[in-house]
Each structure stands twice: as structure tokens, then as C-alpha cells.
């Protein structure tokens, strides 16, 4: 299998793009209203929040980590901001406090992983529960917050359209993708992330400050989570903290892995996130148009994730020399 996959000149990203293209053509032919600019834009809009979260997640995964707190950070940091806002605080300080909270949680995640040396999957799994518990206990009183006041300019983050056509979330997703692409590809810090993910010890031996870098990665993913939460909130004028208990975090991992970013770290780029996001967007859109039932949709998504992980483990086998306990 590995030989077959590697024998061809295709890598996973190209495979995903080809599958996406096939689906795209198939849907265009078989589904009446699929091939319309408005449908394609709504397709992109519906996955842009997922895509934004996946960008944050991919930074951490490339650095050989994983951040299972992203959804919890997203709903509770933004939820806290808006619950203070609804209690009468003005919007900017409320958002600043929420962002600070997200950054603090991200930094603490990074601290647990890099300084306390708890494997990322356990540290962030435990932290996700801590954040949800603390959030419910002290930060957000209700599961759902309704923002009935007009947020003005801020509201356009989620529900506005550029030139009256392109939904703002899509623009923001693409802008963030560009920033992340440049940061990972062309800056020193980006190179450090790849080096740490590829071989932690070698990176340290080469003088990279592994620990502060790891701390930075988790802080960035938390900041991106806050940003995604803000867009989500302004799209539907609601903060839904129930999401912290949903399977959304797996959807984010699905997008990252399916695009071809290896879970063992050091491989892949933002391009992979884009192709993964597009494939998931196509699938969700097509399945909704075909009115496929919820359970079957879940099964299809799960099968795709499984297939992507199998392909990932074939293409990116665990490196016995650099693997360490707790790696995924």
C-alpha cells in the first residue's frame, strides 16, 4: 500500500485536490443548483470558520503537537467577552479581556507541553475539560447567549459581504491563510516550527529555543480560536457554548489530516489546510443538498477521517528515531 501510494507521483494533497475536483464535477452534473456562484460562496462560507480553526490547529500539529482546547477556548473566551458586554461593559474592553483570556490559556497549554513535558494530547485534553468547567462555573452563565443589539462594524465580521458578494468569513479565512502561509514558509519562526516538528532533539541541538517556540505555537492557536469564535458569533448573533462538548474538535483535525498534514509533525503547509477545507466543504454542501440523513453524514465523515489517517500513516510513517512517548 505504501509503495502504491508513494510509487505514484501523487502526494496526499494532490490526491485530495483530485477527489475534490471529481466531486465538484459530479455535483455540478447531478445537483441542480450546485454550480452557482452563490452556492459556491455559501459552501466556502460554511467551512470558513472550520478552515480558520484548522489553520491554528495545523501550526500546532506541524510543530508536533495537537491542541484539543481550541473549541473550548473559542466558545468560552468569546462567550466571556459577550457575557460581560451584555452585562453592560463596552465592547472593546470586553473583547480585549476575552482575547487576553484566550492568550493566557494558550500560553498555559504551551507551558504544560513544553516545560512540564506532558504529552500534548493529554495536556490539552485535560485543559479542554478544565476550560469548559471553569467557563461554565465562572465565566458564562448560560449555554446560549443571544446578542440582540446591533454590533455595527463588528457585526460585519460574520455577516458582512465584500463588495456585496463575497461573505466576510471567506475573506478573513483567505487573509489568515495567506498570513499563516507566509509566516510558516518565509520567516525564521516558521522554519523553527517545522524543525521542532521534524526532530525535536535536533532542533534543540541546533540552538532553537524549543520551549518558548512551543509556548508561542499554542498561544497562536488560542488567538486564532478567539478570532474564529468572534466570526461565528457575529454570523448568527449567538454564542453557543454547547459546542465545547460537540465533536467539532474532530472536524478540525479531520480538515487538517485530510489535507495531508502529518500528525507526526514537521510536514505539510497551509495549502494542505485549504485543500482539506475545500473537500469537507464540498462534501457537507453536497450531502445537505442531497438531503442525506444526519447519521449517514456522520458515518461518511468518520470513514473519510479514518481513510485519511490510514493514508497519513502510510505516507508519513512514525520515525522510530525521533518518536517519543505521547506522540500521535
Amino acid at each position: 500500500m505504501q509503495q502504491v501510494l508513494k510509487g505514484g507521483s501523487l502526494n496526499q494533497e494532490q490526491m485530495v485536490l483530485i477527489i475534490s475536483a471529481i466531486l465538484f464535477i459530479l455535483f455540478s452534473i447531478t445537483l441542480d443548483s450546485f454550480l452557482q456562484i452563490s452556492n459556491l460562496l455559501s459552501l466556502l462560507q460554511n467551512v470558513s470558520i472550520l478552515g480558520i480553526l484548522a489553520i491554528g490547529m495545523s501550526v500546532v500539529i506541524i510543530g508536533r503537537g495537537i491542541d484539543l482546547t481550541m473549541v473550548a477556548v473559542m466558545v468560552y473566551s468569546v462567550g466571556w467577552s459577550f457575557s460581560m458586554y451584555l452585562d453592560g461593559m463596552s465592547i472593546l474592553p470586553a473583547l480585549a479581556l476575552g482575547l487576553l483570556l484566550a492568550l493566557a490559556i494558550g500560553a498555559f497549554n504551551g507551558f504544560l507541553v513544553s516545560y512540564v513535558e506532558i504529552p500534548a494530547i493529554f495536556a490539552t485534553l485535560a485543559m479542554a475539560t478544565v476550560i469548559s468547567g471553569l467557563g461554565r462555573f465562572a465565566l458564562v452563565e448560560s449555554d446560549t447567549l443571544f446578542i440582540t443589539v446591533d454590533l455595527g462594524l463588528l457585526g460585519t465580521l460574520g455577516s458582512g459581504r465584500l463588495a456585496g458578494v463575497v461573505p466576510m468569513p471567506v475573506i478573513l479565512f483567505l487573509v489568515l491563510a495567506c498570513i499563516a502561509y507566509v509566516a510558516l514558509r518565509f520567516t525564521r519562526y516558521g522554519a523553527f516550527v517545522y524543525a521542532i516538528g521534524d526532530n525535536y532533539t535536533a532542533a534543540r541541538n541546533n540552538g532553537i529555543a524549543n520551549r518558548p517556540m512551543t509556548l508561542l505555537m499554542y498561544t497562536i492557536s488560542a488567538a486564532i480560536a478567539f478570532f474564529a469564535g468572534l466570526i461565528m458569533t457575529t454570523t448568527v448573533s449567538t454564542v453557543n457554548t454547547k459546542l465545547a462538548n460537540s465533536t467539532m474538535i474532530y472536524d478540525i483535525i479531520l480538515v487538517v489530516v485530510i489535507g495531508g498534514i502529518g500528525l507526526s509533525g514537521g510536514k505539510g503547509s497551509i495549502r494542505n489546510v485549504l485543500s482539506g477545507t475545500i473537500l469537507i466543504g464540498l462534501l457537507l454542501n453536497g450531502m445537505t443538498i442531497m438531503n442525506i440523513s444526519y447519521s449517514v453524514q456522520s458515518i461518511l465523515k468518520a470513514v473519510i477521517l479514518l481513510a485519511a489517517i490510514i493514508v497519513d500513516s502510510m505516507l508519513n510513517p512514525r520515525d522510530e528515531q525521533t518518536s517519543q512517548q505521547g506522540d500521535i
Partner: protein
Amino acid sequence: MKLGNKKSILGIAAFVAGTMGLLSPALAERPDDGLYDLYTSSFEDKVVAFVPIGMYDLTQGWIAAMEHSAERLGYDFQVRDPNWSIDAGAQALEQFIAEEPDILIFQNNDMHAYTKLVQRAMQAGINVIQMNLKTPVNSDAFIGGDWYAVGAAEAMEAVRLCGEGTSGKVAILQGPVTSPPSLLGVAGIEDTLADYPEITIVANQAADWDATKAHSIASTLLRQHQDLCAFVGLWDNQDIGAAAAIREAGMEDQVIVITEGGGNQTSGCENIRNGMFASYTKVDTRDQARQLASAVEMLLQVNPEPGSQPFGLYTDNQLLTPESVSDTSCWTIEQIRQGG
């Protein structure tokens, strides 16, 4: 001098005796009307436990009424919130069963998940009240929505609002598929619409009680069915997302949202007024909250053998439209907390 002193002591004594005499009626027991003493004593040292699904407008409304009632009558009211986790809810129920409260109230997000636990609680001698979402097993009481009827009422609204001049196409947005309002509500919608062939259900998707997911599904369906008449949703909290998608697509004039909800001021009435919801079947949380408090009050006095006399208090549905909504149609948690 000495005499005067004695006199003043006597005077004080007389005064004290006099005031004691004045006070004595208040110190005596209040007249018993035959029931009052029995009534008050039936709440002494009683414990009422509640395991909700999570902490949202409906549960907060019920809890507000229960806390008000517990404070007034003097029983102990405890809440353990599993935060939407069915596992954590089952654990909370197990824990409560071990602690043997006098009444156990719970709300289940999954039709069958807690069935065994209800039976165990009743075997342990605890009176059980099921709140809003019923398991197939009967306990001492069920208080909550008649979800089949809610679905049927919404379907009739679809018939009314998507009649002539429209495509008659509607899309259903349900919650998690195992949740009672989804199972029964969708059945109610489908059974009712079977008699009205002019209305067609073009999609039936689960939005998981999540506004964002409803928004995604709705925005896709709006492109696919450009002549859609209505979204028929099963909870206002979720259907706000569908309304947002319609507004984004600029299709407010053509596509409407028919929904149901507990009648919370912010998610219900304000959205009916601002045109997001064209029709709203209110399953009034305020009524349910009062009924719950009353049922607890009764069960604590009667103290029946658990499960021996099951009774139901199905909520009276009320239709709210932009024309009929009034200032008193909805409630706030604060009002319920104050006994309103």
C-alpha cells in the same frame, strides 16, 4: 428613697408584665386550619434534586421557579448540571440515587438513555419527575411539551403561510435525531402534512440545536431551493441561525421561519417582533416552571409509592405571530425568579 426605689422596681415589673401580656398572642401558635401544620411539616428536611441537560433559558427558568419555591417552603433544592453530556448526566443521576433525595427531577436529551436509571430511582423509593423530554418509561410525573402536537401545530402554520402564491416547499430543521422533540416533532410535522399535498418537504436536516449549524444548512438549502417558502424548525435557539442565513441572502420577503420555543424574551419575542420568526409555537417555560414547583409541592405532601400514580402535565401550546405578540407573551429569568 428606698421606698421610691421599690416603687420604681414594682413599676418596671408591672410594665414588663404588661408588655409581655401584649406580646403573648404573637408567641402563641397560629390557628391551625386543619391542613396548614401538616402542609408546612411536609417540607421539613426534604431534599429535591434536579439533573437538567445543561444551563440554558428553559432550565434556568425552571430552576428559578424551583429556587423561589424551595426558599418559600423550606425544602432543600440541589442541581447538578451535566453540561450536555449524557454520560455525566447518568453519573449525576446515579449519585443522586445513592443519596436518596425525596424527589428526583431530570430532563433527558436522548429518548432512551436514562430509562434504566428512572426505574432504579423509583425502586430506591424516590419519586421521579421527568421534565420536558420524556423517556418511554412512566415515573411519578411528566411535565413538559407535547412535542407531537408542537410539530403538528407548526405544520398547520406551514399550511397557512405557504399556501397559494408560494411554492409550498418547506425544509425541516431538527435537533439531535435521538432527542424527543426531534423524534416526535418531525413525526407530528410529517403526519400532518400528509393531508396537505400542496406542501412538500424538500429537506429534513439535523442542526443539533446549534445556530451555526442551522445557518450552514439553511444557507445551502436556500441556494438549492430558490423558491423555498419556509424553514420549519424545532427550537428558537437553533433557528436564529436559519433566520440569519435568510437575512444574509436577502430573501426575507420570500422565505420565513416557523419555529417553537419556551417564550424567552430575547430568543423568542424579540425575534418575532423584528421579523426573524414569522410563527412561533410557544411551549411556555414559565407555565412549566410553575407546574413543576406545584408538582413538587404536591408530591412532597402526598408522598406516593414511586410510580404508583403517574400523571402528566402537558404544556398548553400558544401560537405567537408578529401580529399577536404582546408585552406579556414572553418572560425573563428575572421575572420567574421573583415568582412572576
